[in-house]
């Protein structure tokens, strides 16, 4: 990973040292890994907490909507949120630009 400066390799550098602070550093692969993981894990946590009927509900709703409007399969997101004493089902449908329909 990464190219070492001449001075660094002269001193046998391999790891983070004083010299590293003077090198221009690219984004490390570890920080990229962490960023990807954080996004993925947040998404998976929320989807695992959802009731099992939700994907089917989304599928059937989409079929109904497609009877009237020409929308893509990925144009709809569905989210169930629970707070203290109420549940909210949030549907988000991106409609196509009507001038082109």
């Amino acid at each position: 990973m990464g190219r070492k400066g001449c001075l660094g390799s002269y001193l046998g550098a391999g790891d983070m040292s004083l010299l590293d602070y003077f090198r221009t550093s690219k984004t490390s692969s570890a920080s990229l890994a962490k960023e990807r993981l954080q996004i993925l894990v947040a998404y998976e946590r929320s989807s695992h907490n959802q009731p099992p009927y939700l994907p089917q509900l989304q599928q059937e709703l989409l079929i109904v909507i497609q009877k009237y409007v020409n929308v893509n399969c990925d144009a709809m997101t569905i989210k169930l949120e629970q707070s203290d004493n109420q549940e909210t089902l949030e549907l988000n449908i991106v409609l196509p630009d009507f001038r082109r329909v």
Partner: protein
Amino acid sequence: MARIIVVTSGKGGVGKTTTSAAISMGLAKKGHKTVVIDFDVGLRNLDLIMGCERRVVYDIINVINGEASLNQALIKDKNCNLLSILPASQTRNKDALTQEGVGNILEELSKEFKYIVCDSPAGIEQGAHLAMYFADDAFIVTNPEVSSVRDSDRILGLLSSKSQRAEKNEEPIKEYLILTRYAPERVKSGEMLSLDDVQDILSLDLLGVIPESKSVLTASNSGNPVILDEKSDAGQAYGDIVARYLGETRPHRFIDGKKGLFRKLFGGG
């Protein structure tokens, strides 16, 4: 009453069996009567890591099916007489494990042993489910690698929803992290997730970090749990883990790597 520990991870090859062998040996060496159970039916390997593969006569499925008694199936460890091993079956299907059968075995073992260590198979199927179902404590074995961290997070979700404690609304399973195959030098150069990175996502009680070490392979080659190799870094790291689990306070090691001041300042691997 015994304490039931599940060693789990979701992903395969991260060190569950190595960890199960090491901590069960460590607990027994500390004077606690311990049994370690292989839940990987069809792909048993704990016997090999413990070095008792030629002494397996009966296994956990034989006991569940009533073909052998628990005492006939238990194998006394060659290094420590407080440790017993209950092997998995090598031939039968994983579905031969039943919740009732496993429950009965654990109940009977609880009368005799202080700690019951359940070595979970990879995945989230029946074997893994039953290994964690009755647990009091869970040791999550994770590598500093994206796929392993993701799978560990999935397992945490299952521990909190698909366990006996969850179903009975009891106090949840205590979850601990064991980070294995850690290479501090690679963390420093930004090519490996750090302990902090992993903890930012999983936020668990850290039992210990096992450094990437040649001694793990040497130990499995000879069929002796690596914790018996007291000179090795991995052996010492597992020793720390057992002590911490039993309530001792020990400073964490193997996180920064060993380096003198000169090397810290000027680099040099």
